[in-house]
């Protein structure tokens, strides 16, 4: 079967001589889900942009569903971090979610079906009651879920979530993981996490990015592996089936 993501000997730099991603090789098979982790400035966002086809690699090959990223884009649902967007933009939650059904070309109006798909996506994330609310009036966690709903409305085979847990309040966390577990049944979910922080318990593989990229099976991801990525001592805490890592020597001790 064609892998969902296939990356081979990928090099990328913004300026010659300063590689951001170096000789990255990994693949994610159908049915697998993954989590991209690594320190800030390690190249996570760059890797994400490369996967989305927003940046062109210097060398190497990226295939999504066997095709170059620019061609496979419509099979990808992408959730950016919400603070990249204007918080006071005049738009409702449903209007944002239905953008997942956006089509190029003349007369790009949404059908009744498109709106139903968007409503279903909002319902799946437990926020159908927010559909008519202004995006500006929502909390950080709610905005993030609206953006996930928009990505789901694309009916993707691959869901790319940039920092999905950064703004979710503790109460909603459990529900959010349950939702992710459900989504994993249907599609490959690839999440990006900052300061290593949290490694999603609902993951099969962990992709560590710090210029070099390494891939680990979640159950084999050990403290030594985390140290190797972060170049300093990490504390790895197993908490039921979840796996949390905290930077050693910091306030997390």
């Amino acid at each position, binding site marked *: 079967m064609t892998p969902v993501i296939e990356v081979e000997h990928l090099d990328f730099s913004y300026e010659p001589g300063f590689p951001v991603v170096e000789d990255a090789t990994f693949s994610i098979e159908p049915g697998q889900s993954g989590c991209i982790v690594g320190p800030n400035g390690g190249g996570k966002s760059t890797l994400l942009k490369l996967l989305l086809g*927003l940046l062109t690699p210097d060398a190497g090959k990226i295939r999504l569903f066997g095709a170059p990223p620019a061609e496979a884009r419509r099979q990808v649902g992408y959730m950016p971090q919400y603070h*990249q967007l204007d918080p006071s933009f005049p738009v409702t939650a449903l209007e944002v979610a239905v953008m997942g059904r956006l089509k190029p070309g003349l007369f790009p*109006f949404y059908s009744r079906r498109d709106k139903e798909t968007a409503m279903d996506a909002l319902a799946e994330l437990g926020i159908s009651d927010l559909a008519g609310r202004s995006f500006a009036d929502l909390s950080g966690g709610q905005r993030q879920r609206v953006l996930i709903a928009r990505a789901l409305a694309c009916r993707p085979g691959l869901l790319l979530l940039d920092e999905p847990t950064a703004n979710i309040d503790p109460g909603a966390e459990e529900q959010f993981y349950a939702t992710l577990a459900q989504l994993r049944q249907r599609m490959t979910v690839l999440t990006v996490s900052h300061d290593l922080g949290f490694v999603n318990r609902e993951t099969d593989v962990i992709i560590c990015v710090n210029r070099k990229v390494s891939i680990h099976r979640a159950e084999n991801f050990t403290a030594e592996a985390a140290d190797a990525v972060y170049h300093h001592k990490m504390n790895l805490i197993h908490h039921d089936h979840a796996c949390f890592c905290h930077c050693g020597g910091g306030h997390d001790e």
Partner: protein
Amino acid sequence: MSEMIRELFSPELAFLRCALLVGLLAAPTLGVVGSLVVTRRISSLAGACAHAALGGVGLALFLQRVVRLAWCTPTLGAVAGALLAAVVVGVVSLSAKEREDTVIAVVWALGMSIGLLFLERTPGYVDWQGYLFGNILLLSGSDIVMTLVLDAAVLLPMILFYPAVLAMSFDATFSELRGVRTTAIYLVLLGLTACTIVLLLNVVGIILVIALLTLPAATAGCFTRHLWSMMTLAGILSCLFVTGGLLGSFYYRLPSGPAIVVLAGVVYLAALGYSKWRGKR
């Protein structure tokens, strides 16, 4: 009141009627372009276009009077200057390698300076104050035609592509991933912004034109939760501001541009205060 209206229809006040007509007919354009400028946060870019328009005006007047190129009208110069500025800043902001705000400031100052230098060397009387602060006496029937053409040029693509315009204004990256040609739409938006600015130059002048473009939209933004309703309300508000400002300036013998902008500015601040107060409750 009835006397006011009768006075308004007297033949000596053709210029005032013309200004009112241009202001009212420009409302759809002001509503749509103003809302996009406010939500895309490109009002400083619009300011650079306005000031670059003066460069075009200066060059055009110079060519007209010194080089005797009769077809080089100030309006043509203004359009060329504003469009050039829009393209320069637009390309810079898309490639995102240069410091965008610096480039905007340079285009802003350079355009204005070039204009003033050419005006200085242009023989004959030049009403440069009129370009800076607006001069409704300069308005004519051709401005009315231009306004209608611009309305059509703005409204037609807006109606045809509304979902794409909304999506790309909200999140350009996501829209690009869905196959929307965001760069093309952005450049068209910049071009329309430049044309809108030129159209309004005679009404409120270069210095105040950004205010007339952004204040109705920013005020509307305090009360609306859809882009289309923001555009509609911004259009209605710009009608009110232009009419109120022009009539006020006429009856109290004040310059029209500042009168319009002061009215719009005071209403905006009140709206902002009200929406903050309502949000806190």
